[in-house]
């Protein structure tokens, strides 16, 4: 067992552990923290595969910005641990819902296993030190991938507009409206201690 292999096994184990804990938590804050743990472990794997730039981006942008946004929303809504939110299902439901992803993974395992790759140098230092560096990625991004990059700009623009339209609270709007005038089938709103 080489050092690379050991690093891979440890980070893979941490990534899977973090992901599993994330979906099992009752407390949304703990879920976010476990997802960050999993992402940090995945960043190590990225670096092993030569994606130095993306490994850094994954931590800075994903763990650092996107998941902090999640945390921010959870804090804003003041969500706390709630037994109602733990994953629980009737036995039959468990069976089908476990079976679907497990079957998928098993099937994909056989797919992956059928293709034989020539041994590829992986590890912190690969064959080509330029592979995955900022320069190579950026050159490609601003030449061949210019059009998708511009489209992504449009996407971010519309995300801002959309988020503002959906979440902005107008001054005239009362703080809590339980039903709109055009909503006839009003029913009592279950208030959960949240």
């Amino acid at each position, binding site marked *: 067992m*080489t050092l*690379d*292999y050991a690093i*891979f096994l440890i980070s893979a184990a941490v*990534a899977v552990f973090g*992901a599993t804990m*994330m*979906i099992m*938590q009752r407390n*949304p804050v703990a*879920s*976010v923290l476990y997802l960050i743990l*999993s992402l940090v472990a995945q960043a190590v794997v*990225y670096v*092993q*595969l*030569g*994606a130095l730039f*993306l490994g850094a*981006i994954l931590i800075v942008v994903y763990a650092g*910005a996107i998941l902090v*946004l999640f945390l921010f*929303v959870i804090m804003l*809504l003041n*969500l706390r641990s709630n037994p*109602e*939110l*733990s*994953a629980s299902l009737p036995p039959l439901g468990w069976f089908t*819902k476990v079976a679907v*992803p497990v079957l998928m993974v098993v099937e*994909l*395992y056989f797919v*992956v296993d059928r293709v034989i*790759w020539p*041994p*590829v140098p*992986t590890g912190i230092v*690969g064959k080509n030190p330029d592979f*995955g560096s900022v320069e190579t*990625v950026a050159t*490609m*991004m601003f030449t*061949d*991938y210019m059009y*998708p*990059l511009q489209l*992504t700009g449009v996407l*971010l623009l519309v995300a801002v507009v959309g*988020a*503002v339209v*959906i*979440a902005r609270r107008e001054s005239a709007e009362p703080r*809590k*409206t*339980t039903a709109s005038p055009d909503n006839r089938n009003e029913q009592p*709103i279950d*208030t*959960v201690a*949240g």
Partner: protein
Amino acid sequence: MVPIHAYLMLAMILFGIGAFGVLVSRNVIVMFMSVELMLNAANLVLIAFSRALGVVDGHVFVFLVLAVAAAEAAVGLAMIITIYRNRETINIDRYNLLKW
């Protein structure tokens, strides 16, 4: 040296956990985070293939996917805030005005 299969298997397992999380969770925020995990598993596959093929196209795509995930997060969280204001719960089972 770690074979490329190992990385792909890790990605598959993470993808499966993400899909499972979307199916079983009742917390909208956790469902959403599971989807993000699935996107990350796909990113890992792209990066592993990039390495195996020796081209960086996959890296650029992953970068764009990260931007997509950020955009989705902004819109999705805005929606969660709105529905929480109206319903005061993030339990998906209680969003039951429409027959799901």
